[in-house]
């Protein structure tokens, strides 16, 4: 089943900026896809560097969604939404790069929605969500890298 951005915003109560095209079907992707500073990675890509803990707890993704990350200005979140009972998420991961926000495990199409980037579909499967980093430009920074927040 395909969905348009208009249907997705109606269904979830989340909104996107007016200039984004609302009537076009949202593509559903089962591979690597990025939304701004977030990337959704099929688990097979990173199974050697990312794992769950024995105490990892999963949460069901409600229709209203889970906020994965907010933008630098504080206002614009990336939200994960899905039909209740079809998708679960956990933040309890071990990731060698330290970039993982969590893992998505979904049996139906789930969606990532963002006010500026619009929506994108995630095919059933298991994925790791990572955020983006860059090399810190400060010589005395506590870490050599820093996170991007667009």
């Amino acid at each position, binding site marked *: 089943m395909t969905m348009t951005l208009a249907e997705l915003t109606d269904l979830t109560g989340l909104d996107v*900026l*007016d*200039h*984004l095209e609302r009537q076009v079907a949202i*593509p559903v*992707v089962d*591979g*690597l*896809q*990025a*939304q*701004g500073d977030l*990337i959704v*990675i099929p688990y097979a*890509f*990173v199974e050697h*560097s990312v794992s769950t803990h024995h105490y990892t707890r999963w949460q069901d993704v409600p229709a209203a969604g889970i906020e994965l990350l*907010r*933008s*630098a*200005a*504080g*206002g614009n979140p990336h939200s994960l939404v899905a039909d209740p009972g079809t998708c679960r998420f956990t*933040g309890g991961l071990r*990731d*060698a*790069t330290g*970039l993982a926000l969590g893992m998505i495990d979904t049996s139906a199409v789930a969606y990532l929605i*963002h006010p*500026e*980037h*619009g*929506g*994108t579909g995630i095919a059933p499967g298991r994925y790791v969500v*990572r955020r*983006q*980093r*860059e*090399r*810190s*430009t*400060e*010589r005395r920074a506590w870490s050599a890298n820093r996170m*991007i*927040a*667009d």
Partner: protein
Amino acid sequence: MPPPLPARNFCWPLVARLATLASELRERMDDRIGQRSSSLISWTWGVSGTGSVRTMAPEEALAAGVPVKRVVEALVYDALTETLRDSVCAPVRTELLPPAVDSPGLAWYGQHDATWVAHYDVMARVGLTTYLSDDQDQLGLWVELARSTGWWWPGEGMCVMAERPTEIHTEPQPGGFHGELRLHRDDGPAVLYADGVQVHVLHGTHVPEWVINAPTVERIHAERNVEVRRSAIERIGWGAYIEQARLRLVGTTGDPGNPGSDLHLYDVPRELWGRPARLLLVVNGSVEPDGRRRRYGLSVPDHLEDPLSAAGWTYGLSGEQYAGLVRRT
């Protein structure tokens, strides 16, 4: 070497006696409240931040068993420390009282002292503590000062008081969970005083006036502070900066998953960031309201040889993996 201080504090200059008075007041009030928990809490509530009271909604923190005093402290003291002391007071102080200038003496910050004044005031107001009657009266005076003045400098028989700023421009602090703000204004000074004194700040970075009004490549390369340099480049725009600074192109390739957009990798002159680095110029996957796509520059390690590896590195992936990107929004 300064002369040794007189032994008894009533002989000290007024400014020192006032500081002692305030510090003793705070100690007594801390005793009444119970131990300040900020220093301990990061260990007990996880340094990762996920379970920290600083990143939890108040209801959530209380439900998780965080003591109510600690929740109020996070909402008031911690948030005000970031908003007022670190984000407002610090840049204003750097601008108005540069280290090279003779210090006009110990300053009190009036409204900007609200960081600690509000902490003690709120603890009592919400019934989490009571102070000795004299202490409550003294605290009342500090509250009155925080409500009614800018910075002030007490002296023998006189007091210099500054007006509060006439304009303060802010934006939400990224990662702030309790309404923390930082200074920001990109079309003028972020802080303005009635006598025309100005402080320029972009997204929390204190910058010289030229960054707002006349950023140029020459000024950027002559600037010593990297955060100022970065802010100035963002003013010009990464694309225009790369062109004007004639950065050497290492490689260009199409951005997989972002049809029609390219990834460009550049060598950055060592003097820009003070260490070897490369710059990846990327294009946003979605359009802005004006129909354009925003370009921005990401710093990457200098060992990355091609744009795909550089783009992959930003997500902890290899170049081959990033080449498989299906879609970017």
